[in-house]
């Protein structure tokens, strides 16, 4: 029983063995071909409309825009925040207290950008209002208030940490500690 199982595993290994020319196992090739066949079947239908060049631009552009613009932008922003809030000899790093609310607020903005940005101009808000009967100009304000709330919670948390960790009786250091949240404003 065990020997038969081992034999089967060995055979499976051989089937997966890297082919000299193809560079992967034969199962890899079959999987790729099956995948591309389905993609092709759906793809010709996706591109059947008159706007097929734009559909390709959207499909590929989404990947490029994310990989080459959005990701580098937020990574650089995060790097700047981490550099600015790094710990020094006098206090611990407070990166998380900026990073977390900023990331959460940015995420909300990213997902609901059409509604939030549409709140400012008259066109998009009017379109939304005409369709749904709901006020279209409220989303920017709501997003700003949520952002304010996130940063306020973060500030309180930082304050709590600061107060908790204050060594007792150290008056001079206490003064410095109190200035810490202000540096984050």
């Amino acid at each position: 029983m065990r020997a038969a199982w081992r034999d089967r595993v060995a055979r499976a290994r051989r089937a997966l063995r890297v082919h000299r020319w193809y560079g992967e196992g034969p199962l890899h090739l079959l999987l790729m071909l099956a995948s591309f066949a389905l993609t092709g079947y759906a793809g010709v239908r996706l591109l059947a409309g008159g706007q097929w060049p734009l559909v390709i631009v959207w499909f590929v552009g989404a990947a490029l825009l994310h990989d080459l613009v959005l990701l580098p932008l937020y990574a650089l922003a995060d790097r700047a925040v981490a550099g600015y809030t790094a710990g020094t000899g006098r206090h611990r790093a407070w990166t998380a207290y900026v990073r977390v609310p900023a990331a959460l607020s940015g995420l909300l903005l990213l997902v609901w950008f059409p509604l939030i940005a549409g709140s400012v101009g008259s066109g998009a808000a009017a379109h939304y209002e005409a369709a749904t009967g709901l006020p279209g100009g409220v989303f920017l304000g709501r997003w700003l208030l949520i952002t304010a709330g996130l940063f306020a919670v973060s500030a309180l948390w930082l304050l709590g940490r600061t107060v908790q960790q204050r060594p007792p009786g150290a008056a001079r250091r206490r003064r410095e500690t109190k200035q810490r949240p202000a540096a984050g404003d």
Partner: protein
Amino acid sequence: MGAHNPLTPPTSPSFWRSPLRGPRLTALLGMVLLAGITLLFVTGLLSYAAYNPNLAGGVNDKTPGKGLLGFYLFSWPTDPHWLYRLTQGVHVTLGIALVPILLAKLWSVIPKLFTLPPARSPGHALERVSLLLLVGGALFEFVTGILNIQLEYLFPGSFYPLHFYGAWVFIGAFAAHVVLRVPRTVRALREREDPGAAADETGLVAARPDPPTVTRRGALGLVGAGSLLLFVATAGQSIGGRWRGTALLAPHGGRDPGSGPNGFQINKTAAYVGIRSQDTGDDWRLTVEGGGRRVRLSRAELLRLPQHEAALPIACVEGWSTDDQRWSGVRLRDLAALVGLGERPPDLLVESLQLHGAFRRAALRDNQVRDPRSLLALRVGGVDLSADHGYPARIIVPAAPGVLNTKWVSRLTFGEW
């Protein structure tokens, strides 16, 4: 990302500095996406079936060239009456909540995009093409879906074919990716730690990591918090009740458009789709056709027919829904009986007065017509329908997508059309 030496290109392994990256982080995010995207795909297919696109005449079909991709279609049931509210609420809310997971997953593997040489072998080249379809497809589906629910129809073409065929393009690449990566993913989740950079064949572990500014648990916590926040800011538009107030950024969250029995959420207002008050006044007549007969009825005549009540929600493809509303009106099967088709009512074509909208002509299947809760509704919550909810008369059918609950009905054709 980034490097101490600004000349280090992203194609160099030492460009990537985050100590968070590694097979374990990617595997964990990958498993969450595997479960989440599978559920998204299934609920998406269900939504497609809920439109009954293969009904005779294809009036509901926005993808007539679907071919074998409609292989699984079935008669959409009318029970439970909240079925579409659930499946589509899950589809949209889950899609929104998965955004941070998807972004984190893509971040975790970004060094692989810049790997040199671009292809080691023909097999590797095929796989990279497949990965472009995977990433492009995922982002295409998320972007078209998220734009559509915000009524921002920027995409090139109609939403239905783009989102439906795009999903199939994506799922082909997704399935291949899952099969190829499951063994390494399982191994990564079993291991206590990532291998060192030298022993890491995935190419994810940083060769020269920067000191950490956050623990991996902390980073995952941030991703989870993002998911949770998006969920809280969205889910209320589907759950309804007082939870609608928590969905502060969702298109149909926050509050209802009015008060009183007609104060619930509106998909498209009367003015938006070109309903003129003179068309819905006393001169309005409903035409009922079928079996070679035709009947024309005024609203007063409809109100003199037997009135029935049904408590049913409106559930939109955009993911939002209303609580059950108390509708009253004439049963669709009673209207079929007016033209002699009361025994076994057939499929029904519903036409609206509205001038715009992809579903101003829509078809209902016989199982929907025969359900005793399926009404030509004249009143809601004890008062006449408002203009925005379809006065003088609208369709309401249990478990059907919102757009099939046609408003401002002008003509019903039973059977052949």
